């Protein structure tokens, strides 16, 4: 019964996305053309990838506010490595490793020193961004300072979709398998759902949280490269404030902020929902000044919707009530 109910929550979100597309298509049919939708998906790829990493972290009752800063730092390192002639595969390995390392710093502080994650990542958020400044003196790395191959990889189109979008698709599939079918993946839910009980079943809460941070960091590192290559620029402030979008995507997708509940499909749709809103507004020609208020309202409506499904369920003791329900 609950499973169908949960499914229906995701169904509501899917319907909302479809309705949104319909409304947009009404004003601007070109938006729903396959090519444009592919474009929206590509644009939303960073958000989707980061939302999955964030989902892992939120499932364990933590939050990672440093993702955007991590992304920016890894992106900058990618650009610098490219500048000194490091081949692309090595750069990819390096940014993922670096991102994971930065995530591990968060994870260690949460695990070993038991500092609440919001405090840790609030701190590392500014530190990671600061490191970019210290490394570069605040200088930008621009398109002409990047090699063609570096910029071309995420844009290369395979079967109608750019590599960037394919990477997001791959991450979604891999992540779904990880979360649903592996022991560490299930541990994420256990740790967030009932940390106390997790200890009794031999799952280390701290180690699992650490793993979630490493995962989130690695994905941020990967996204860092994609971002910098796609927008062909790297500087201190890239993706500034993006962490809030990422958290918002998770929340809209029904990932319980208290941990332990949520689905990959939800997170992905949450990200798509935000991505479509962001992409559609300029296209539909709504004044740019309305953008912020509209996304804010969309977030509020979405969480109010989600909450209706999550409301406390009675225990249903009365026999006849069981039939009515």
């Amino acid at each position, binding site marked *: 019964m609950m499973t169908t109910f949960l499914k229906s929550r995701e169904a509501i979100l899917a319907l909302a996305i479809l309705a949104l597309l319909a409304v947009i298509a009404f004003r601007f049919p070109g938006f729903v053309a396959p090519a444009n939708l592919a*474009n929206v998906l590509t644009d939303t790829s960073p958000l989707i990838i980061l939302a999955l990493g964030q989902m892992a972290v939120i499932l364990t009752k933590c939050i990672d506010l440093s993702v955007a800063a991590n992304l920016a730092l890894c992106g900058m390192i990618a650009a610098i490595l490219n500048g000194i002639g490091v081949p692309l595969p090595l750069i990819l390995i390096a940014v993922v490793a670096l991102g994971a390392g930065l995530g591990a710093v968060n994870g260690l502080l949460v695990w070993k020193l038991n500092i609440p994650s919001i405090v840790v990542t609030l701190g590392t958020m500014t530190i990671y961004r600061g490191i970019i400044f210290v490394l570069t003196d605040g*200088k930008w790395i621009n*398109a*002409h300072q990047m090699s063609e191959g570096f910029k071309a990889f995420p844009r290369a189109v395979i079967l109608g979709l750019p590599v960037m979008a394919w990477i997001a698709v791959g991450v979604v599939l891999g992540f779904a398998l990880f979360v649903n079918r592996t022991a560490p993946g299930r541990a994420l839910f256990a740790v967030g759902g009932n940390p106390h009980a997790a200890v009794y079943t031999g799952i280390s809460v701290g180690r699992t949280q650490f793993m979630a941070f490493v995962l989130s960091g690695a994905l941020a590192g990967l996204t860092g490269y994609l971002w910098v290559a796609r927008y062909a*620029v790297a500087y201190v402030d*890239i993706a500034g404030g993006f962490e809030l979008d990422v958290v918002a995507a998770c929340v809209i997708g029904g990932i319980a902020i208290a941990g332990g509940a949520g689905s990959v499909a939800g997170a992905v749709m949450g990200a798509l929902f935000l991505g479509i809103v962001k992409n559609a*507004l*300029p296209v539909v020609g709504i004044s740019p000044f309305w953008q912020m208020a509209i996304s804010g309202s969309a977030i509020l409506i979405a969480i109010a919707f989600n909450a209706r499904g999550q409301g406390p369920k009675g225990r249903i003791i009365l026999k006849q009530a069981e039939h009515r329900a």
Partner: protein
Amino acid sequence: ETKRIALVVKALGIGFFEAAAKGAEEAAKELGDVEIIYTGPTDTTAEGQIEVINSLIAQKVDAIAVSANDTDALVPTLKKAMDRGITVISWDSGVAPDGRLMHLNPSSSALIGNTIVKLAADHLPDGGDVAILSATTTSTNQNVWIEEAKKVLPNYPGINIVATVYGDDLADKSYRETQGLLQTYPDLKAIIAPTSVGIVAAAQAVTDAGKIGSVNVTGLGLPSEMAGHVKSGASKSFAIWNPIDLGYAATMIAYNLSNGTAKAEAGAEIPMGRMGTVKLDDNKEGAMADPFTYDASNIDQFSSIF
């Protein structure tokens, strides 16, 4: 005794201002007894600039030359600075008259407004739809230039400004806004981005959309950042004044005013070293020089400089 002149910029790390700082150092060397404090907030906020200016006041610097993130918000703080005997001028992006002795425009706003439209029109003999990609909605100079550009439109028949969007001087936002423009206006012929961040992002978006040749990106940019896009054809030409000159001139003016060699009054002519003199209008504003146009023929020459 050395004079300490603070060059306060919109945000640290922006190529344009780094170049201006170079010019300021050049002026300092020429003058001999000047120490330059190059500073600014991390992101382009008025609050951040106020904090920076407060600490400059505390250090009792001799002069502050500021490129403002907000015309009005800095006024009370800058007034306080002037009350404490500090020479305050604005340059590049201005402060309301109450908050400074004078303002140095890189070029006259009318000229810039005209130039950016002309850049687009030059490559559109038959006219066409043009959109503007600006920086933040609060950027003083962008707003003035766009206003001026709209004023001269009747001189360019066929050129039709269809939209103004804001990329907030963020690469990704500018990129997305450009994508929006390309979709909303399939007949778009040119994008004018009077901001060095926006123009690069717009050129990139046009390249990615495969619209090189059909949409020309122009506006104000830095040769070093635009070199690739000029070569690829995404941008046929763009303009900018020399930021090194601008930093140099601002420093010279600040030095002369703080020394008492010159007075910031309407109609006054203030010397700016190798850049000649600047004549102040009734608003106590002056223009440094004409904007200079860069295209495939001269880009290589400048792209290594700034």
